């Protein structure tokens, strides 16, 4: 037994498509950055198909296991299936091998799914460009890491922050500014400061990108924000976001 869950399946879990592409559901802003407590990872709630808002209640920050998160950007059908495949792959490995998969193996598992998806990516049908955050549990000194991917499967470690999706351009500029001249920079922010910044960033992105939305504290619409530390994943729930917004961001 090698702990490879995909070997149990009769065919690859992510579809290989050759048909002409229908209108694609996509459009997103997701990002992750280091803060004092760990890695904060956040996303908006909007999914679009062309000019149409498909949903304003889409969850894009997905927990893969107790110490791994994936923020999805691109075509949800493919991205959700990739996340589901990884969830089962990581848990299957942990249970069957009686140890957690290493962080490097998890990072490559996502890379492999993206490579397997290249035919759909090249046809413009199933483009996915995710962000991954995880911790190497076997190293007691390791802290949470952020990785981002191109749609062909190349992975890059983000020293400070990463963003993906159609609205990420504007917020990456802000994060760069904060990193360079912020006082404090995001990496030194407390969780409540970082949460307030995350909400502001998503609201900024939605000003410039019609495919980013579903976050507006004035209308009680909050983001999905999660914190990853060595102890695991914690969801910054709506009440906590509301408190941070009222205290810090207004």
């Amino acid at each position: 037994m090698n702990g490879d869950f995909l070997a149990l399946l009769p065919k690859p879990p992510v579809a290989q498509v050759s048909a002409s592409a229908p209108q694609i559901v996509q459009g997103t802003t997701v990002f992750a950055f280091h803060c004092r407590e760990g890695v904060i990872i956040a996303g908006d709630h909007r999914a679009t198909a062309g000019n149409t808002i498909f949903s304003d209640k889409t969850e894009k920050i997905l927990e893969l296991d107790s110490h791994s998160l994936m923020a999805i950007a691109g075509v949800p059908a493919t991205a959700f299936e990739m996340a589901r495949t990884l969830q089962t792959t990581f848990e299957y490995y942990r249970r069957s091998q009686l140890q957690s998969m290493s962080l490097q193996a998890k990072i490559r598992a996502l890379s492999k799914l993206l490579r397997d998806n290249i035919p759909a990516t090249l046809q413009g049908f199933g483009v996915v460009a995710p962000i991954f955050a995880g911790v190497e549990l076997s190293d007691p000194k390791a802290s949470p890491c952020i990785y981002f991917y191109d749609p062909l499967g190349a992975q890059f470690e983000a020293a400070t922050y990463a963003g993906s999706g159609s609205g990420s351009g504007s917020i990456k500029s802000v994060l760069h500014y904060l990193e360079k001249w912020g006082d404090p920079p995001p990496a030194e922010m407390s969780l409540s400061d970082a949460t307030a910044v995350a909400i502001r960033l998503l609201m900024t992105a939605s000003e410039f990108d019609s495919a980013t939305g579903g976050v507006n504290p004035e209308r009680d619409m909050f983001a999905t924000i999660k914190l990853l530390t060595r102890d695991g994943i914690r969801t910054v729930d709506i009440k906590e976001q509301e408190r941070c917004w009222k205290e810090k961001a207004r």
Partner: protein
Amino acid sequence: MTEEPYRWLEAIGNRREYIREQIKGGTPVFAVSRPEGILLLGVGQGQSKVFEIYDRHAFGALGHPVDIEKIRQAAIEAAHVEGFTRSSKDVTLRRLISFALSTTLKNSFEQIFSPPLMIESIFAELGETQDEDVLVRVHYDGHHRYETDGVVIAFSEAKQEEDAVAWIRRALKAKDSLAQVASVCLTAWQALVDNKPFAELNAPEEPLVKIEGKTVEAALLDRKLSGSVHYRSLDLNRLKN
């Protein structure tokens, strides 16, 4: 040899005897349904006896380590393929045992020209409430029995196993802590291993948390854990009375 029916019966009888003989030295494993979740407990010497199978499923066994591993892997594979293909809610012990495991065990037992699977096992499925917990005793020949009274033990001797289950049910009280439940299980474990009669056995006054020279392995399918995974290992020394 199998062309003659009585020879086949004789071969099966011999096989049963052989398996029982081989399993004799194995020590028992326990599962007890409680309000907090399902406590699983085994005592070994380095080798694990209690395992996580799926989000709300666990397994404990005695027997040949290789055979325990085979059944463990088969259960994990079947559960994960089902959970991925359909959903985690579709992974139920009833389906897992009826369609995947007991047929494997029965086939293995009846293939008289190949080595048998030497294993006695218990499976547990955590429900939303204690009443919905499912405990199953599975034998090496695929025969299985659903336990409805919240206690299941796998041991090599059927009569002693039955006595131990009855004793644990009597000894446990509704408000017992997990440490007390574990202590009752360990007392029963010691009695089974020492072949002591349960009629004279009393629950220990001081909670028993260890067995000299052995490794006590305990796990809880924890009803209160948020998220999909409910299995967690327990350190008995850290449990509060």
